[in-house]
C-alpha cells in the first residue's frame, strides 16, 4: 500500500513540518492584521520581497540571522505603507492590498535585475542547516520531523505560542482584538485604534517577510521569481480555516503541508504516474478552497474586519 508506506516514512513528516513553516509565519502575520481589523492582501508580494531581501542580504555577506532581520524589515516597510493607506486614510483594503502585492513583487524583480543584470541562474547562498536536538531527534518518525529542523522552523513554532499568549493573555492582545471587533470601545479606553491597527499591520507584515525568507534561506538556497506561487493567498485561506485563532490556523498549515508533502510523494508512485502531475499540483489550491467552504458556515470573522475607523464618526 503506497499511501501507508509514505505515512510511515520519516521524510514525509519532516517535509510536512518544513513545508508548513513559511505558511505558519505568514499565516500568523495575516492573522494579526485581520484580528486588528485590517485585511492584508499585500501578503503575497510581501512574502516575495521578504524572500528576495533576506536572500540578497546573505548573498552580500550579512549573516543568516541578519538576513532574516532584513527580510522582516522589508516586510515591515511595505506593511507601513499598507497601514498608512488603509488605516488613517481608510482606503479600500482590497485595492491597497493588491497594489502592495504588485508593488512589492515588482520591487523585488527590479532590484534583482538591477543587482544581478547578467546572471541566467540565481546564485546560491549557504542556507540554514538542520539543527538536531540531541536525544529527541533520535525518536522514530517524530525525531526527524520535529527535532531535526532548521532554527527558523523552531522559531515558527515558538511564534505560535507567543502570538497566542500575546493575543489572549495580555492587555495589548485585548486591545488588538477589540480594535478588530469594536474599535469604538478601544477609543473609549483612551487608546488609539489607528496606532493599534497600524502596529498590527506592520508587525504582521514583518512576519510575512520572514515567511518569504524561509523559502530562500531555509527551504531552498536561491531566489526565483515565481517562488512564492500563491502561498500568500493560501495563508489568507488558512486564517479563515483556523477561525482567526493562532493555534487552529497553525494546525491548518500543518494539515495543508501534510497534503502537499503527500501529493509530491504520490506523484512518484506507479499509480501516481498515471495521473497528470498538474492534478497533484492543483491539490493545495483546491484544498484551500475546500477549507474556506467548510469553515465559512461557522465563521467567527472579526466584526470590524475591513471597516475603516474614523474618530468621531459613528
Amino acid at each position, binding site marked *: 500500500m503506497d499511501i501507508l508506506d509514505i505515512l510511515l516514512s520519516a521524510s514525509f513528516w519532516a517535509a510536512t513540518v518544513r513545508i508548513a513553516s513559511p505558511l505558519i509565519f505568514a499565516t500568523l502575520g495575516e492573522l494579526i492584521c485581520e484580528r486588528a481589523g485590517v485585511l492584508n492582501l499585500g501578503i503575497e508580494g510581501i512574502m516575495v520581497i521578504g524572500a528576495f531581501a533576506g536572500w540578497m542580504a546573505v548573498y552580500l555577506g550579512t549573516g543568516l540571522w541578519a538576513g532574516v532581520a532584513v527580510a522582516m524589515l522589508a516586510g515591515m516597510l511595505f506593511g507601513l505603507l499598507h497601514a498608512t493607506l488603509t488605516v488613517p486614510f481608510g482606503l*479600500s483594503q482590497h485595492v491597497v492590498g493588491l497594489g502592495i502585492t504588485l508593488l512589492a513583487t515588482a520591487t523585488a524583480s*527590479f532590484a534583482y535585475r538591477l543587482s544581478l543584470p547578467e546572471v541566467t541562474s540565481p546564485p546560491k547562498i549557504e542556507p540554514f542547516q538542520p539543527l538536531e536536538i540531541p536525544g529527541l531527534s533520535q525518536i522514530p518518525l517524530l525525531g526527524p520531523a520535529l527535532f531535526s529542523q532548521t532554527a527558523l522552523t523552531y522559531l515558527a513554532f515558538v511564534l505560535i505560542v507567543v502570538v497566542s499568549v500575546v493575543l489572549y493573555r495580555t492587555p495589548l492582545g485585548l486591545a488588538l482584538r477589540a480594535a478588530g471587533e469594536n474599535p469604538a470601545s478601544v477609543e473609549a479606553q483612551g487608546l488609539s485604534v489607528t496606532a493599534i491597527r497600524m502596529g498590527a499591520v506592520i508587525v504582521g507584515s514583518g512576519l510575512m517577510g520572514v515567511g518569504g525568507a524561509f523559502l530562500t534561506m531555509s527551504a531552498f538556497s536561491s531566489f526565483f521569481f515565481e517562488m512564492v506561487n500563491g502561498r500568500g493567498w493560501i495563508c489568507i485561506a488558512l486564517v479563515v480555516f483556523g477561525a482567526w485563532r493562532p493555534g487552529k490556523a497553525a494546525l491548518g498549515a500543518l494539515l495543508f503541508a501534510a497534503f502537499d508533502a503527500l501529493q509530491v510523494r504520490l506523484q512518484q508512485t506507479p499509480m501516481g504516474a498515471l495521473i497528470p502531475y498538474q492534478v497533484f499540483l492543483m491539490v493545495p489550491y483546491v484544498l484551500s478552497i475546500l477549507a*474556506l*467552504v467548510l469553515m465559512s458556515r461557522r465563521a467567527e470573522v472579526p466584526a470590524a474586519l475591513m471597516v475603516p475607523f474614523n474618530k468621531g464618526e459613528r
Partner: protein
Amino acid sequence: MRLEPIPNPSALRRVGLPAGALALTVLIASLLALLAGANPFATLGLILKGAAGSRFALLETLNRATPLIFTGLAVAVAFRAKLWNIGAEAQLYAGAVVTVLLGTGALPLPSVFLVPVIAAAAMLAGALVLLGPVLLKTRAGVDEVVTTLLFNFIMLLAVSWLLEGPLKDPMGMGWPKSPALEKAARLPRIVEGLRLHWGFGLAILSAIAVRVIQTRTTLGYEMRAVGLNAEAARFAGIPVGRVMVKTALLSGGLAALAGFSEVAGLKGNLTLDLSPGFGYTGIIVAMLALLNPLGVVVSALFVAGVFVGADSMSRAAGVPTYIADILLATALLTMVLALRLTTARIRWR
C-alpha cells in the same frame, strides 16, 4: 489625525490632487532610473518614444491595450457591484481554451458565423469559471477574493495539462502549445497590412456596451445599487444574489474575450505564456479609470503604453523593464489616495 468630508471639493482639488499623484509617480520612476545609472529624463523620454514614437510603437501599444480593455472592463463591472473578481486571469484562459477547442476544425462554418460563435462560447466559458466562486459567495458566504485568486492557479495548471495532453500540437516539436487556429476562426486585421486586429474594435464596442448596460438598463441600476449598499438594495426589493450572479456572468464573459481576442486575433494558438498577467493588470486599469467603462479604454492605452515603452526603453537604456510594474503600482496607490483626499481633508487632532 482624522478625515473630515468636504461637501463641495474645489476644482483645484479635483484636478490638482490626481495631477499630484501622477507627478509623484513620475518622480519615483525618475529616482528608479537614477538608481539604475540612467538619465531619468532620457529614460522617461525613451518610454514615451517606445510607446507612441512611431507607427510601429503605436500599433504595439494598441495591440497590448486590447486584452487590457477586456480585463479592465471585467474588473470594473465586478468592482462596481462590490464583487471582488480577482480571477480575470483564469477567465481569460478559459476563453482562450474554448477558442482553441472550437477554432481548430471542430465546427465547419464560414468565418462570418464561426468567429461570433467562438466568441460567444468563450464568453460562456469565462462566465462559468466565475460562476463557481460567486455561487459560493451568495450561497455559502465564502469570500470571493481568495477563491477567485486560487482559481487562477488551478486554471493555469489545467491549461498546462491541456497543452501537454489533449490540446498539444502534434507538429509542435514537443513544445507545450496548441495547434494553430484555422484561418476561418481568426479575427481579421482592421486594415490589411497593419498589425492591428478586430479584437481592438471588439474591445471598444464592449466598452460602449458596458456603458449602455450601466446607464440605460435596469440591470445597470441594480448593479450600482448593490455596490453602493447591498443591505439597502435588498430592502428596496432588489434580488441581490441574482444581481451578483448576472454581474459575474458579464464580468467573466468580458475577461474571457481577452483570451479569445489574443488567440484569434494576435497569437493564432495557445501557449502557457499567453497572458503576462493581463488579468491582474486589469485591476490597475479599472481602478485608474475609476471603474468607468469608457475610462477603461483610456487607462488601458496608458498602461499598455507604459509596458510597451518600458520594454523598448529597457533594451536601449538598460533600466530593468520591471520599472513599468513599479510605476503602475505606484500610480494605482497614489491615485486612490489622491481621490480620497479630494473629498476629505486631513484634520490633525
